[in-house]
């Protein structure tokens, strides 16, 4: 009982380590909203704290989306796919659609959900560039991170986006028509296998263990936080207005009340609840166990470092790196929130 669901799982380990050591590929289709119109830049800039106006054609940008209270309600990648046309990659298209509609006002923009039109495969890991370079007609050698280009695989039109959710320097996303998915999958699988990699099939690896090891969040980690608390304020463009800006400025002025910290559980097997499964997460106390100082947001496993790793959303300053605490009776240590 309480056997670690990550540590002893050879399948998860091999899929995770394929991405770290060679290359892994997986079906990674997100929801896509395509937006155009004369006011598209102004509209997106009003919705997202990231700088959209400076986003060149063919480039992407990660940004949060905030409500009026400055809380993160989505985190997305915005791709400037062609002059005046943007793709917004999200996992909450229905809510986003409602939010945009509610805030459209006089902005002259049009958008449509194009999720059904595009499938996406992720190819991630140190050998991913070799795989993509071999598969594609046009070279990807000079392609920058967060750059999307048209290309071809086996005569099939695709878009290659150099990006990823694994923390790997080399990682690509292949966008294609769902009609071509089977053909492209076969080609990718063959080339990945030839490069000593494999297919990643486990959700927990693609969405939890790989990104967490690299200090990347899943939206559940970010719910009801603001960018300053979780360290996502670096890319905020303060020289423009956006929804949530006033609230964030107040946070900047007074200082964040909470912060996201990393932690490791020292035992092999344990019972500690984390928000990744839903619910409020395990409460975190210090010493006397009288005052709750935080809640466990994420708790997975770093196959690179061989530790149980995760995040705690904690009262600012309550937990410092190196602190030893007990969570639900298990010894833990506070760490940086990155394990690579």
């Amino acid at each position, binding site marked *: 009982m309480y*056997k670690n*669901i990550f540590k002893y799982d050879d399948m998860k380990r091999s899929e995770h380590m394929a991405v770290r050591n060679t290359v892994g590929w997986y079906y990674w289709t997100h929801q896509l909203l395509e937006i155009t119109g004369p006011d598209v830049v102004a509209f997106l800039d009003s919705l997202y704290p990231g700088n959209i106006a400076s986003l060149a054609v063919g480039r992407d940008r990660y940004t949060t989306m905030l409500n009026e209270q400055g809380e993160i309600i989505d985190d997305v990648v915005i791709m400037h796919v062609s002059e005046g046309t943007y793709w917004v990659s999200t*996992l*909450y298209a*229905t809510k986003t659609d409602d939010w945009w509609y509610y805030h459209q006002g006089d902005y002259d923009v049009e958008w449509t959900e194009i999720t059904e039109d595009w499938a996406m495969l992720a190819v991630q890991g140190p050998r991913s560039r070799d795989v993509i370079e071999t598969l594609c007609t046009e070279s990807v050698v000079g392609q920058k991170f967060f750059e999307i280009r048209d290309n071809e695989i086996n005569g099939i039109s695709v878009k290659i986006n150099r990006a990823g959710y694994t923390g790997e320097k080399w990682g690509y996303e292949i966008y294609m028509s769902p009609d071509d998915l089977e053909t492209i999958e076969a080609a990718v699988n063959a080339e990945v296998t030839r490069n000593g990699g494999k297919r990643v099939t486990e959700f927990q690896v693609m969405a939890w263990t790989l990104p967490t090891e690299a200090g990347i969040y899943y939206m*559940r980690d970010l719910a009801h936080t603001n960018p300053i608390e979780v360290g996502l304020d670096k890319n905020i463009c303060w020289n423009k207005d956006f929804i949530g800006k006033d609230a964030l400025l107040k946070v900047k002025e007074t200082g964040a009340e909470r912060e996201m910290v990393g932690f490791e559980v020292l035992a092999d097997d344990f019972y500690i609840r984390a928000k*990744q499964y*839903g*619910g409020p997460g395990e409460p975190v106390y210090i010493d006397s166990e009288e005052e709750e100082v935080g809640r466990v947001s994420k708790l997975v496993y770093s196959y690179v470092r061989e530790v149980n790793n995760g995040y705690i959303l904690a009262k600012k300053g309550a937990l410092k790196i190196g602190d030893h605490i007990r969570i639900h009776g298990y010894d833990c240590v506070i760490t940086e929130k990155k394990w690579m």
Partner: protein
Amino acid sequence: MSRKIDERIPQNSGVGTNIKEYVAIQSPWNKLVSYQEAMHYISRFESVLSAAAMQALRIMIPDYPERAELMCEDAYERLYTTGKYYGNDDSFGIHPFMCGDFPGALIGDMGDDALLMCGRCQDFGTYRCEKELDVCDWDIVGSELCRTTTMSLQGQAKASRERRPDGPTLDYMMVEAKGCGDRHCRIIAENREKYPAPAHELWQSFGPAVTDDYKKVTQEEDTVEEPMMFREECNYHFVNGTNTETDSSNQMMNLSTAASLYILPAISEAVKRKYVTRKQADHILHCVLEASGKAMFGERYAIKGLRDWMGVPNSIKEDGRLLAGLIEMQLQALVCGYEVEAFNENECILVIERSGLEIGGTRDMAEAHVSMWYGMAKTLINAQWACWEEDSPAKKLRIRIARKIDKFA
């Protein structure tokens, strides 16, 4: 008989004062019951009705495996079909890249909380999922139901899976069940290629789990009594692992019951498979529900408790208003529309929106309630009294509670 309605305090009494307004159901004597308590009350009442309906099915199909198999097959097919045509992956936070059966766990997770079946998801992965419940109002219905709900989840998972590219399938099993006497309910879903186990029939969905040593069993001191939507630590919101959030604002309107979802449809299936005729099925169901209704107030203290709960004044003795008042509370808790045509010491008449009582679209639910209410009249009031349907307009259920001499009662 007079169609008199006794003087009642209007529902908006007090509006405009400085007293805060609360969401509550209201008895005819102006006793308010909070939203939360009303949900708990109606959930348990409907579970009692469901437990009685299950007894009826047990009479119709005495053999446990046969009965469980029929229930599981029926639920699997119906929920698969419902999921196929009406499933909404977005509303559960099922993402496009989630291939396979495992997103079905998100459907079950959210459904549990909405039914006050609080607990926690313990694992959520492509090859293994685990959900643990601390509370289940359906735990009095019968273990066949535990198997059946598991198979309905299997059906929904399949329907959801078919909307995305192929992925690993899962074998959903309820390895512990409060309905069997276990402390928790525990569904563990495993992929049989990764975790091989002998094949089993649909109804044999009780495990054991191959991954028993992965189980996260919550100790008593950490168990919960309320769903997330009623817990401060959850900010009064249900939140799942993929960040779907809901609150309690529409839960009463969406309350489903074991009887409406699983048992009455299974009885219809039993008729279709010729275990009984429709007439026999209705007769058995009526007999069992009537007895169940009588049992509710067989003990005098239950009547005292009810009077207190509804704030019934001492001036009201044994008459139909006791039952009519209780039925009004139930209807409000079910968010079922009704009108009071008569409410006095001689008779009470309620005209009820039939569709509001046909929870989940199960048509026999209205008749099932009338049978229960008939039995309740006998012990809550006395044997001179009865509750029956009379002169119902289209789409309505008009019930009358009055004295009635019936030589064949």
